[in-house]
C-alpha cells in the first residue's frame, strides 16, 4: 500500500527590517542572503529548508521585513499574504518565528503582537540581546514568555548564539496558539497593543534610571546635526561619486579593450559578411557597450552595501526626508533616486521598499531623470563643442554639474506635480525608519550582494540588450546598399530612411536627418549615439575613446546644411544636450519600469511623457536661442 508523502511543516520568519531575520534564516538554512542595515532588505519571500532536533524536515520562509501587518506597502502585503496562506505556491505557516531586536523591544513587539493575533503558533526570537544588555537594558525572557504565552529564545544571531535553542523551539508539537489578551478595546487595537507593550517592558525589559549615551548616540549627535549632518552627507555622497567615476574608469577601460580585442579576433576568424557584421558590430559592440558599465554598477552597490550595513543609509534617508517632502516624496525615495545616478535600472528596482504605492510610482516615473552614467559619453562628446575647446576644462565640469542639477531639479518639480495629481493616499502612510546602531560592515554579505546585483546586470545584458542589439543592427544594415561608404550604407538602411522621414520633425530642434537617425538609434541605449554619429559622418573609430570623440568633433564641426550653414552650432549642441537630459532613451529601463509598476501603461506613459518633454524643452531652447541671435 502506498503512502502519501508527508509535507514538511512550514516555519515563517517575520520581523521588522534590520532585526536580524535574514541572518537567522541563513543560519537555519545555510543559504546566503543579503543582510542590510536599512529598511527592506528582503522584498520577496525566500525559501529554505532546515531540520529540527528530531531530524524532521522543515520549510523555512524568510518574509520581507515590515513594521506592521497593515498591508500598506508591497513588503507588508507580501508578509500578510504569506502568513494568512494567500500567497500563491506558498503553504500557510504552521509556526511563526517573530524576530525582534531586543534593544528596540517596544517598537518590534508591535509586529509580534499582530502576528499572535492572527492565531498562529509563535516563537519569539529575542535577537541582539548583547546590544540590549550593553545599553543597560535588563531583560527577563522568562517573564516575556509568561506574559506573551509563547516560547522566547534569547539570541545573538550574528555570533551564531541561540540558533541551537531556536531549533529546539521548532520541535514537534509546536507551541499552542496564544490568546491575544491585550485586545480589550475593540475600537482601537493599536492603543491596546501599545498599553500592553508598555506594561510588558516595565516587567521584562527594564531600563536603567539614567540613560547612557552609546557610541551611536554620540555619532548621531554629529551625523544628524542640522548643519554638520548635512556637511557629512554631502561629503559622503561626494566621496561615493568621486570613487565611482574615478576607480571605475580603470576596469571600464580594461573591459572596453578586451571587448575590442575579442571583436577583432572574431573579425580575423571570419570572412566579411552579414553574420560577421552581426557578431562584431551588433552583438559584441551592443552588449559590450552596456557591459562596460558593470564596474560602475558594482562600485555603486558596494558603496550602497557599505552605507546600509554600517547604518549610515538610514541616517541619510532621515536627513533627506525634509528635502524629499518638498517633491511630495519621503526619505525612502532618496536611495532609489541616488542609485539612479549610476543606472536607472537598480534605482527603479530599489523603489520596492517605499510604503506608499503612489509615492513609489512617482519615484519610478522620475528616476530616469537622474543623469545616469550612460549619458556621460554623449555629454563628453557634446559639451566641448559648446565651448569650442578640448575635453577636460573646469568650465566643462561646471556645465556637467549644471546638467546633473537640471535633471534633478526637473525630476523634483515633476514629482511634486505628479504626486499632487495622483491625489491623497487611501490610507495614511507614515515614514517610519529604524535608526539602527552603527556597526562594522558585514563584508561577506556585502560582497555576495554585489555579486548578485552584478550578475543580474550581466544577465540583463545577455538577454534584453542582446535582443535589442540584434534588432538595431538589422535596422541599420537592411536594406543593403551597394556603396562601400558606411555613411551612405546607413542612409540607405531602414534606420536612415526613418531618419530622413523624421527630418521635418527634428528640424525645429536644429537637427538634420542624419542627427535624427543617430538620435533614433540611441533610443535603445543613449551611448549608442556616439558610435552612430561616428558611422554617419564616416569617422574611423580608434582604440582611445577620447581620441575618437575628438575626431568626431572635428568632423561634425565641419558638417553643413545643404545651403552651407554650419550644422552643429553651439546652440544646436545645447538643444541636443537638453534632449539627452530629458529623453528616456533606454529600453531596458522601460522594461524594468513595466515590471515594477505592474503595467506597461505606466512604462509607455513614462516613455511618451519624457520623450515629449525632451522634444518640447529642446524646441524651446533652440527657437528661443535663435530669436536671441545665437
Amino acid at each position, binding site marked *: 500500500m502506498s503512502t502519501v508523502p508527508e509535507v514538511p511543516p512550514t516555519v515563517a520568519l517575520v520581523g521588522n527590517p534590520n532585526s536580524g531575520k535574514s541572518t537567522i534564516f541563513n543560519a537555519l538554512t545555510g543559504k546566503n542572503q543579503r543582510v542590510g542595515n536599512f529598511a527592506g532588505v528582503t522584498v520577496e519571500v525566500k525559501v529554505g529548508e532546515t531540520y529540527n532536533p528530531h531530524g524532521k524536515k522543515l520549510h523555512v520562509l524568510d518574509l520581507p521585513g515590515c513594521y506592521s501587518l497593515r498591508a500598506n506597502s*508591497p513588503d507588508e502585503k507580501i508578509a500578510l499574504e504569506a502568513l494568512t496562506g494567500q500567497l500563491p505556491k506558498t503553504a500557510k505557516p504552521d509556526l511563526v518565528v517573530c524576530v525582534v531586536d531586543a534593544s528596540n523591544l517596544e517598537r518590534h513587539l508591535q509586529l509580534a503582537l499582530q502576528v499572535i493575533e492572527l492565531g498562529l503558533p509563535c516563537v519569539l526570537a529575542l535577537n541582539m540581546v548583547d546590544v540590549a544588555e550593553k545599553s543597560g537594558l535588563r531583560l527577563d525572557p522568562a517573564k516575556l514568555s509568561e506574559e506573551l504565552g509563547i516560547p522566547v529564545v534569547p539570541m545573538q544571531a550574528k555570533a551564531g548564539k541561540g540558533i541551537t535553542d531556536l531549533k529546539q523551539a521548532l520541535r514537534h508539537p509546536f507551541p499552542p496558539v496564544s490568546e491575544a489578551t491585550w485586545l480589550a478595546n475593540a475600537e482601537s487595537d493599536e492603543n491596546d497593543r501599545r498599553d500592553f507593550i508598555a506594561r510588558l517592558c516595565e516587567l521584562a525589559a527594564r531600563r536603567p534610571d539614567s540613560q547612557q549615551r552609546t557610541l551611536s548616540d554620540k555619532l548621531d549627535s554629529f551625523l544628524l546635526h542640522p548643519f554638520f549632518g548635512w556637511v557629512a552627507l554631502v561629503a559622503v555622497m561626494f566621496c561615493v561619486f568621486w570613487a565611482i567615476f574615478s576607480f571605475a574608469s580603470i576596469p571600464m577601460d580594461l573591459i572596453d579593450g578586451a571587448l575590442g580585442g575579442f571583436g577583432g579576433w572574431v573579425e580575423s576568424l571570419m570572412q566579411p559578411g*552579414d*553574420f560577421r557584421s552581426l557578431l562584431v558590430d551588433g552583438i559584441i559592440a551592443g552588449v559590450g557597450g552596456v557591459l562596460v558599465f558593470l564596474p560602475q554598477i558594482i562600485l555603486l552597490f558596494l558603496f550602497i552595501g557599505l552605507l546600509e550595513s554600517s547604518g549610515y543609509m538610514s541616517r541619510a534617508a532621515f536627513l533627506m526626508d525634509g528635502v524629499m517632502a518638498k517633491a511630495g516624496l519621503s526619505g525612502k525615495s532618496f536611495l532609489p533616486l541616488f542609485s539612479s545616478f549610476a543606472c536607472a535600472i537598480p534605482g527603479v528596482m530599489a523603489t520596492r521598499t517605499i510604503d506608499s504605492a*503612489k509615492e513609489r510610482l512617482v519615484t519610478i516615473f522620475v528616476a530616469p531623470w537622474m543623469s545616469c552614467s550612460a549619458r556621460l559619453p554623449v555629454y563628453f562628446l557634446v559639451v566641448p563643442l559648446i565651448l569650442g575647446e578640448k575635453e577636460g576644462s573646469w568650465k566643462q565640469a561646471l556645465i556637467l554639474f549644471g546638467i546633473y542639477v537640471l535633471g534633478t531639479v526637473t525630476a523634483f518639480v515633476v514629482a511634486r506635480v505628479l504626486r499632487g495629481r495622483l491625489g491623497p493616499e487611501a490610507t495614511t502612510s507614515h515614514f517610519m525608519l529604524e535608526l539602527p546602531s552603527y556597526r562594522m560592515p558585514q563584508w561577506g554579505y556585502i560582497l555576495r550582494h554585489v555579486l548578485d546585483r552584478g550578475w543580474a546586470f550581466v544577465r540583463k545584458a545577455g538577454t534584453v540588450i542582446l535582443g535589442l542589439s540584434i534588432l538595431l543592427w538589422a535596422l541599420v544594415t537592411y536594406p543593403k546598399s551597394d556603396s562601400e561608404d558606411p555613411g551612405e550604407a546607413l542612409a540607405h538602411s531602414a534606420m536612415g530612411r526613418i531618419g530622413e522621414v523624421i527630418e521635418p520633425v527634428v528640424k525645429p530642434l536644429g537637427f538634420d536627418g542624419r542627427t535624427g537617425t543617430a538620435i533614433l538609434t540611441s533610443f535603445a541605449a543613449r551611448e549608442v549615439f556616439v558610435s552612430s554619429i561616428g558611422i554617419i559622418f564616416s569617422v574611423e573609430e580608434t582604440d582611445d575613446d577620447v581620441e575618437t570623440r575628438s575626431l568626431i568633433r572635428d568632423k561634425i564641426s565641419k558638417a553643413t546644411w545643404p545651403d552651407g550653414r554650419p550644422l552643429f552650432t553651439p546652440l544646436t549642441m545645447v538643444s541636443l544636450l537638453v534632449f539627452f537630459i530629458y529623453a528616456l532613451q533606454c529600453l531596458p529601463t522601460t522594461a524594468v519600469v513595466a*515590471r*515594477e509598476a505592474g*503595467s506597461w501603461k505606466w512604462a509607455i506613459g513614462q516613455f511618451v511623457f519624457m520623450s515629449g518633454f525632451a522634444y518640447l524643452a529642446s524646441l524651446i531652447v533652440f527657437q528661443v536661442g535663435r530669436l536671441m541671435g545665437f
Partner: protein
Amino acid sequence: MDWQTITALSCVLGTLAVFAYRIARPSGKKSGCGKSCGCGVEKKR
C-alpha cells in the same frame, strides 16, 4: 544569398519571434504594486 546572410537573417527573425512571444504571453508574475494608484493592477482584498 550566402550562408552569412541567411544566418544573420535567421538570428534577426528568431529575436523578433522571441520578443513577440514575450510581449504577447500572459504575465504570470504578480506586480509589486500597492493599491489605488491608478496603474491598473487591482488589489485582491
